[in-house]
């Protein structure tokens, strides 16, 4: 395997991008990702926070103590992973992490891997999705993605600008991917909007190093209240209001997520004032 360390965007030419390595290295070890060339993008992705723009190379550990960002994002970073992982993991990488669905991680030939069934639906699924779970019941693990969507943030890649929401797509029969990122496309910056208030609440089954059972991000942006959830659908999930939870389609062992989501949405909205 070859490791490249470009210092200029112009040098990018294929390969698998790696930043902190907290996701890519385990996937390589488990054979879920194969790469002849690894591209260490730390030399080309901006890092740090300036005037509402966050370099995608900023680590979660840096953001959790950053006073100049909205509460929801700072909390989402603080509650994610473990201190060791937050010290390595980048904001951009966090948005692109794959599901924690154990069937997918163990390489079952499930729909996300191109197969023709979702093993979790009939199998063990207590941590899985309660929305959009018909084709694939995986749950999206990124706290940060839900926070950024609630905050109405936008991304700049080496090819385009887009809303964070537009980064994600539900997998379907024709296309099993969960992001719209193209080959060779690299997230460079996250642009925040002016936010009046925001909050992130997260249900965890231990106090650190727990992916969201349910994560709830809320924000008041330009007079609008935006809500986005983590851990409830194959991609970060936006809802208009608490009543939207009535439309959830939980599986038998994920029904418990609904009262948790209701309580957290209510509490998060109350925090907005």
């Amino acid at each position, binding site marked *: 395997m070859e490791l490249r360390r470009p210092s200029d965007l112009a040098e990018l030419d294929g390969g698998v991008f790696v930043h902190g390595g907290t996701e890519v290295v385990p996937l390589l070890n488990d054979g879920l990702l194969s790469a002849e060339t690894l591209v260490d993008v730390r030399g080309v992705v901006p890092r740090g926070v300036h005037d509402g723009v966050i370099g995608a190379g900023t680590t979660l550990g840096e953001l959790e103590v950053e006073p100049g960002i909205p509460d929801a994002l700072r909390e989402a970073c603080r509650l994610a992973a473990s201190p060791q992982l937050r010290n390595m993991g980048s904001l951009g990488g966090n948005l692109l992490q794959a599901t*924690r669905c154990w069937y997918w991680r163990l390489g079952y030939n499930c729909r996300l891997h191109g197969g023709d069934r979702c093993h979790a639906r*009939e199998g063990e699924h207590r941590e899985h999705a309660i929305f959009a779970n018909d084709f694939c019941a995986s749950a999206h693990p990124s706290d940060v993605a839900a926070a950024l969507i609630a905050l109405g943030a936008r991304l700049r890649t080496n090819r385009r600008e887009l809303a964070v929401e537009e980064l994600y797509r539900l997998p379907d029969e024709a296309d099993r991917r969960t992001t719209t990122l193209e080959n060779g496309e690299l997230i460079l910056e996250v642009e925040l909007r002016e936010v009046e208030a925001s909050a992130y609440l997260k249900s965890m*089954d231990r106090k650190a190093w727990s992916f969201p*059972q349910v994560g709830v991000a809320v924000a008041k942006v330009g007079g609008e209240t935006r809500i986005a959830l983590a851990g409830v659908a194959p991609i970060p999930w936006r809802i208009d209001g608490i009543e939207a939870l009535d439309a959830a389609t939980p599986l038998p062992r994920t*029904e*418990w997520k609904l009262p948790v989501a209701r*309580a957290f949405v209510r509490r998060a909205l109350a925090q907005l004032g």
Partner: protein
Amino acid sequence: MARLIRTEKEVEGRFEEVWIVVEEDPLEQWPEGPREVVGKPATRKSGPERVRGEARYTTDIRLAGMLQAAILRSPYAHARVKSIDLAPALALPGVRAAIGPGEAHGLSDEIGYSGAAVAAVAADTFRQAQAAIDAIAIEWEELEVVLDPDEAVRREQFTADPRRYERGDVEKALAQADVVVEATFRTQSVLHNSMETHQAICEWVGDTLNVYISTQFIWGVRDAVAETLEMPADKVRVVCEFMGGGFGSKNGPDEYTFVAAELAKRTGRPVRAALTRREESTAAGNRNATIQRLRAAARSDGTIVAFDGEFTNAVGWTGWNASTEGPMKMLYDCENVRTVTYGAKINTPPMKAFRAPGFVEGTFGLECLVDALAAKLDMDPLELRRRNYAATNEGTPISSKELEECYRRAEPHWERRHEVHSRSDAVWKRGVGMASQIWYGGGGPPSYAWVRIGSDGRATVITAMQDIGTGTRTAMAQIAAEELRLPLDRVDVVLGDSARGPYASISAGSSTVPSMGPAVRAAAADAREQIEDIAEQRGLPRDAPVHEVVDLLEDAQILGKGARGPNPTGMSVLTFGVHVVEVAVDVETGEVVVERVAAIHDVGRIINPLGASSQVEGGIIQGIGHTLSEDRLLDPETGRVLTSTLDSYRMPTIADVPEIVCEFVDKPDTHLTNLGAKGLGEPPIVPISAAIANAIRDATGAEIHELPISREEMLRALEAAKRKEKRGAPAAV
């Protein structure tokens, strides 16, 4: 004088009759209370080595020319190998040898769980060995899979004959009782998840096999390897200097050791076989799940008149039928007790002993049931426990029992509940719960130690025992230092190598201190007596400091030897304790937070109070994981372990640790050995889950029936309590 006796030996609640040679132990116990060294807090002897990274664990060992092994494991839960071809593996780069079913103990062509070992490869690197494993051509015939323990019981598919017990007349007592409570409890399968995975390095030197292994029982590995390979026992040398956790799962050799030995023989090179984390989560053992269908009956004055229990241990493909019914038989003075215990043989990974096997699960069920009884009797749970205090163990005298004293010391913690309740609000409900603990922990013979003292006045304790991370080196050094009247820093302990010292007991079943400590003290006393004789000959007082007596010895040495004496005959040796737990429950989301644990334990004399409180804290933290977040999940279709990484299998983090208050009764068991000390490894994990569940009941009225108490289980219990309250309330007019 050596004496041959027939005695009952207990390990992990399992008994066997054995012949042993014991040496009488004429030493009087030290008086109660802290001594010069024993009974005072001592930091770890090996602490600096560990934090500097100098301590050499099995996983650190790299022998010259060492090859790496990988193991092919079954993807099916029940299957037969129709054909296997190792040739494609052997053709790959770096591969030195490959073996298949029957070629090493533990490699089989008939497998009963997903993850069972079938074949193995040795290569220059682990990656090469893994690639070779993937290249092995294998054809399977799938067989019928049974994963449901109740289904296995219906089919009478058992790992051992069902165990039945009855005293008194349970049916009659149930019929005549004033109050009967009934509940079904389920506990999950949990993983030991030792930091250091199971592993061994085998190296042939002439006709001797050196086994470097992460183990809780050096001599058990020696004997099992020698027996399986049909070798003289002393031609197997077993080394384990430092060990990264075992919790009951590392009591014997297992397939990786035999794979390494066979591949080492075939290649003429040392071979390391180390499980990956995913293999560790599958093939290294687990605490089996249980189903407990229980009833208890009492008179209105709180006298418990009957216990009735049907216990199903979901043992797995191999393992043993642990004593889940033990607490029901032993904890209370109850005339009528009936139990049946099924060991369900199912196509799941093997059960192995896990820190108080059976009693952890059984205490959860029993002590939750007792609180349900207290609620129905409208009686204080502590009072109910006291009222049914057992003075004997089913009629057998108990060598020492200070549970009443534990209850007395629990009172101030129990009294806090009024203040704890007052801190509840609309969302967070707070409560206090308790549970009692009973377990073994008396250890036993044989075990031996030597003590060597040089003219520098330093002593070295030599015994081929293992320190499994519990602070054994320190405790043994303290005992020797006390007996020799030496400061602790003048005593070293050499252990961890069967070629360097005499036989030593297993470190399991809370037995290391009670088994080894008396032998170490006896050896130190033997040396001390010799030193006193020399002092007398030099015209010094008999109790002159050691270095003054031995300073002219030059290269001469004082050699002491000691053996573990017998256990008291006709008595049960048991440990006791009580936990009082404070919890907060978010009644909207089902989140449970353990806020405070008071743990009061009676394990006889405490050797090292600092080490002892570490044991209690560790047991409680591990128990909180068992109670709230850990769950070994299987795919219901394939029987494959789904939670095989440390992010999906959730052990508590340091952020989850509550305030823990440890107290010890610290009263020597006057019948037990020259120390009066029992073991503490297991007791602290026994009562914690029931105490947490009882605190949840106190806080919310919800009755917990299942471990782990996930959000799902907590919300179910809250919902059920709400429905029950509605039914019980007077109809609205």
